[in-house]
């Protein structure tokens, strides 16, 4: 029989997370710190609005770009948090999670062999989506000594004549790193000078623990150079609702909408109604969750200090990214042994790029009680390794 498979797809590596997931699922009573989604339930008033939409029979397609009311609320939200005005009629597209926005955003702008700069460690989909779009990924290996921020020098070094897009994934999964206004200003200058497009994935923008998040699109001259991606999953604990959005210049949104229209039609209607409620009345919920995450973040940083585990202090998302180089094993070995010997599941840093070697991603989207047990076990494991 013929080989029916696409060469392009078969050469793409499956997510490194998947492999680990299979091992963990077989192990009972393992505690996981490997989850990339909030532990909170979606706030009840938001769920209730979804239920109400179903009761009212709101079960049809919406317009391709998403409900007008939702796009208006997104526009208001971006304006009140970032001071940027996006026209709800033609500069906002509601997508199936931020993930879809990443995919179709890249597909809308990439020509064959265009280069896409991807700082790593970062979320698993940028590289495969770039390849699927026909582009060429150019990886920047971010450094712990820069707190995993992207520096102007690193960026300049990666830019060639073929560079079209820079992915800017902050606040960052898996490192928890943020980029502050001063950092962004330096990057923006290069972007404008070299006439590059930024895809700014700000899905964790509501979860920062130093200053409020700044979007690069809010800097002078940058709106025209940015596809801003955000969504409801992390801020409002709405991962399963699959709802995100992209804000960009209307020429780009127009092309993205075409792909979205043919591939997806529209984002789930129930979720869209719930999301309107989230944006209108969800600020307090987000703030309460943010406070809880921050307490857990401080708890972990203190625990690492006490067990003498090296970790830069992250100020975003809900991850910490401790360094395990002192133990002389790969991240995957460490994670596998930790799982087998102490039954704690942690994702190896290498799942987010080769330069994640020597690091672990620990999620604190868990209750403090849960974190305490898991960290107790991690500590036991580390002491065991050190005493050898």
């Amino acid at each position: 029989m013929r080989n029916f498979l696409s060469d392009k797809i078969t050469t793409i590596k499956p997510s490194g997370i998947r492999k680990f997931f299979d091992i963990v699922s077989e192990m009972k009573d393992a505690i996981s710190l490997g989850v990339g989604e909030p532990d909170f339930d979606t706030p009840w008033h938001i769920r209730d609005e979804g239920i109400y939409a179903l009761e009212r029979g709101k079960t049809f397609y919406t317009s391709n770009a998403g409900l007008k009311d939702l796009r208006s609320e997104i526009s208001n939200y971006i304006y009140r948090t970032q001071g940027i005005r996006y026209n709800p009629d033609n500069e906002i597209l509601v997508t199936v999670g931020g993930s879809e926005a990443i995919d179709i955003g890249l597909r809308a702008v990439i020509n064959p062999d265009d280069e896409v700069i991807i700082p790593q460690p970062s979320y698993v989909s940028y590289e495969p989506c770039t390849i699927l779009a026909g582009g060429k990924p150019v990886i920047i290996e971010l450094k712990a000594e820069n707190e995993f921020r992207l520096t102007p020098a690193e960026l300049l070094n990666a830019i060639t004549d073929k560079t079209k897009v820079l992915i800017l994934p902050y606040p960052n999964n898996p490192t928890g790193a943020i980029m502050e206004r001063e950092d962004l200003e330096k990057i923006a200058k290069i972007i404008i000078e070299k006439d590059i497009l930024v895809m700014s994935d700000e899905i964790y923008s509501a979860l920062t623990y130093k200053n409020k998040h700044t979007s690069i699109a809010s800097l002078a001259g940058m709106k025209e150079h940015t596809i801003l991606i955000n969504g409801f999953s992390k801020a409002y604990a709405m991962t399963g609702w699959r709802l995100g959005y992209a804000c960009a210049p209307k020429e780009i949104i127009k092309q993205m909408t075409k792909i979205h229209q043919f591939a997806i039609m529209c984002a789930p209607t129930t979720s869209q109604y719930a999301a309107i409620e989230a944006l209108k009345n969800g600020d307090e919920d987000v703030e309460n969750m943010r406070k809880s995450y921050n307490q857990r973040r401080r708890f972990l940083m203190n625990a690492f200090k006490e067990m003498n585990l090296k970790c830069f202090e992250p100020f975003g998302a809900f991850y910490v990214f401790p360094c395990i180089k002192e133990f002389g094993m790969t991240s995957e070995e460490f994670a596998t042994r930790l799982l087998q010997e102490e039954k704690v599941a942690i994702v190896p840093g290498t799942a987010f790029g080769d330069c994640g070697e020597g690091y672990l991603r620990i999620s604190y989207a868990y209750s403090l009680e849960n974190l305490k047990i898991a960290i107790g076990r991690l500590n036991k494991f580390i002491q065991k390794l050190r005493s050898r």
Partner: protein
Amino acid sequence: MREELLAILEKNSRIDFKELAVLLGKTEADVLNEITKLEQDGIICGYHTLINWEKTSIEKVTGLIEVKVTPQRGKGFDEMAERIYNYPEVKAVYLLSGGYDLLVILEEKTLKEIAGFVSDKLSTMESVLSTTTHFILKKYKDHGTVLGKKHKDEREVITP
């Protein structure tokens, strides 16, 4: 830090100073000072435990009694409230807006004892105009905590 500190303590009064300091990003001394001040100012009034008595073999009946009273000149409702809350079996007294004035929450071992309190003590007070007594049949949620239901983590164990 005050609001966040109170929010943590309201949910978990057994937490120690060291952990509180870590969670709030303050020193232990700061936390200790703040709590002492909160206690002195009567903002923190006690450290209680939320018990689901229904799961024990101990009998308890809780009554909610709506009380209409004649406010007294110069003292309003305060004196009446005091006369009622001085009974140790009274767990709570609130002044309310609406159809009646005071809501009295009473905890006893039997229904009869609650009935006795209402007929012998409460109704006989001069300024009490009328009472309506309700009995609590089941507590689903108390102090923001859903009783008798354990939260289950529905998430996949590893996600990106």
